[in-house]
């Protein structure tokens, strides 16, 4: 069943829903990247929680006009309106009052969500309309989704992707260097507004599948994950969109196979699994690679210190240093240098003497800045420069030939 779901073998409707979710995941990953880079990720949490009263009110309005209150477009329009109100309130509170943005987000989020829950309770006491399924907006569900619902989601997600493609340059500049953006004539507030509109669109469209509580994860986890893999904005955007799409695809397929599983949490857990893998394994920024780099560096430092100690004829106290010297064949177990060790020690000392000399000479300022106690000096200076330095070392009493 699960494999059938993953390979889209569960029938036309399930397939459509899975593909719709995938597009939504991509749109969220792509749109969320700029939110993350602009350091405003939590605003999306306020937006998503602020949708709930809108959903409930839209249901009530539609019922009062004689419908059953289940029209998705109507519900999403209500969600968009109240989310927009919440967004305006957050920006008003943080710009016009002394409230910091995090406090503004916290207040708006909780008040709107509380209002929404009260309205949902009221709806449960209503006799008209078919309120069953409204609570799916909290955690998301693909069960009972109509083909038209899936199409709406797919189209809206595709539009969002197109908008990001169109605005990628202003969005990048507004995130990286808004002052410069203004100086070259970009309307940064309007770009910010477009970004928030984008996030609002993704949130509202994603309500049905992921649910309002967890949609924030779909906007934040993919970009944070993608950041591990690249140092380029355009690549981070693409990777984030891909990861978001993968997480949503797997999540939606699994929940189509097991209709009791809530879709949103599964998508988020798949996204988290991708995040955890990246955190550990990504080259460059990953934890494992950082650990290895640190160990390698530490090893070089120990070796260098050990060699310098050998050159000075000092005893080596640290077991680790001694172990490394022995492993390289530079020292005997009692800490006495081998033939090879004496040669390496002399070279290390000569290098160090040269480094100390150029560090005290302003003429070598640029080169001296690369001193880290490890870099061989011949990678920094030319042979002529080294000869010039050596002549001075000899003048000062021939520290070491």
């Amino acid at each position, binding site marked *: 069943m699960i494999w059938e779901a993953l390979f889209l073998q569960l029938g036309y409707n399930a397939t459509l829903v899975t593909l719709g979710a995938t597009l939504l995941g991509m749109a969220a990953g792509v749109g969320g990247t700029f939110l993350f*880079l602009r*350091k405003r990720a939590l605003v999306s949490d306020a937006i998503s929680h602020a949708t709930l009263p809108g959903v409930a009110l839209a249901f009530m309005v539609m019922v009062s006009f004689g419908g059953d209150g289940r029209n998705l477009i109507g519900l999403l329009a209500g969600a968009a309106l109240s989310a927009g109100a919440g967004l305006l309130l957050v920006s008003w509170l943080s710009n016009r009052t002394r409230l910091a943005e995090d406090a503004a987000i916290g207040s708006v989020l909780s008040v709107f969500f509380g209002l929404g829950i009260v309205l949902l309770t009221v709806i449960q006491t209503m006799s008209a309309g078919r309120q069953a399924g409204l609570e799916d907006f909290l955690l998301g569900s693909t069960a009972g989704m109509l083909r038209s619902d899936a199409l709406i989601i797919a189209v809206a997600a595709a539009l969002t992707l197109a908008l990001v493609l169109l605005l990628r*340059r202003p969005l990048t500049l507004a995130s*990286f260097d808004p*002052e410069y953006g203004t100086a070259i004539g970009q309307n940064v507030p309007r770009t910010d507004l477009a970004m928030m509109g984008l996030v609002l669109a993704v949130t509202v469209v994603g309500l049905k599948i992921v649910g309002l509580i967890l949609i924030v994860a779909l906007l934040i986890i993919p970009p944070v994950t993608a950041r591990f893999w690249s140092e380029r904005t355009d690549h981070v955007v693409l990777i984030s969109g891909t990861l978001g799409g993968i997480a949503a695809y797997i999540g939606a397929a699994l929940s189509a196979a097991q209709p009791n599983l809530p879709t949103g949490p599964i998508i988020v857990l798949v996204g988290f699994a991708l995040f955890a893998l990246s955190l550990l394994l990504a080259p460059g920024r990953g934890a494992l690679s950082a650990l290895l780099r640190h160990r390698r560096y530490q090893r070089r430092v120990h070796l260098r210190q050990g060699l310098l100690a050998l050159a000075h004829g000092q005893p080596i106290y640290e077991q680790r240093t001694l172990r490394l010297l022995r492993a390289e064949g530079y020292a005997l177990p009692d800490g006495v240098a081998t033939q090879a060790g004496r040669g390496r020690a002399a070279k290390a000392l000569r290098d160090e003497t040269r480094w100390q000399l150029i560090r005290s000479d302003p003429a070598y300022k640029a080169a001296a*800045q690369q001193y880290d106690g490890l870099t061989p000096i011949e990678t920094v200076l030319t042979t002529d420069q080294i000869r010039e330095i050596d002549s001075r070392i000899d003048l000062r009493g021939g520290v070491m030939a």
Partner: protein
Amino acid sequence: MTLELASSQETVAPRAESPLAVRGMTVSYGQKPAVFSVDMTVEPGKMTAIIGPNGAGKSTLLKAALGILTPLAGTATVYGKPVEQQRHRIAYVPQRASVDWDFPTRVVDVVLMGLYPQLGLLGRIRPVHRARAADCLARVGMEDFATRQIGQLSGGQQQRVFLARALAQDADLYLLDEPFAGVDAATEKAIIAVLKSLRDAGKTVVAVHHDLSTVPEYFDNVFLINTHRVAEGRVEEVFQAHHLQDAYGGRLAGAQMDALQLS
């Protein structure tokens, strides 16, 4: 005292074609003005330093003139027209501390940002644009760093990249906010060489500057500010002890003044 000064010293005559003319600029954070009713007329084809003590409103004046900050009052014109119409002629180098250096972007990507107005929203980055970016990086001596992530650079190198981005714009007026803050001596030399070559090519350069000792060596003109305009004009006429003491409110010690070797 300020009033007396304003009347007693010669003002550079406002001309329609000034690369940057500021009139009656007032900017305030809260109720306290950071810049109060300042007039400034930048002379074309010269290098002008904006100097003054900490908190005197140097950067604020520049940002307000560019529309980065919204002033309470005042206008700025660039080559005789409103700034909004002349953006393509202005290149701006912001303070290094104003951006997030862990941002996922490489040196060459930052320089390409200088070409965004030219590229538009969807214009493709073509070899000619890459060549231009590489050329600008070479002018500031950073061609070997093109594919580095910007956070891996030293402060001086970051400043050079910002300058390369401004060069890519191929503007007529270059505005720099503290370009020498926290950079090494080699970078300072490289930057000033580039700025002088711009000036010699007929461009106009305005820089917020904080190191009084290098003013006569680096700049042609000075603009002294301490919330109010204190003095403005040629270095040899304006960069003098009494003006400096006015701007710095007596905060310059005698020894510091002597070290400046004022004319």
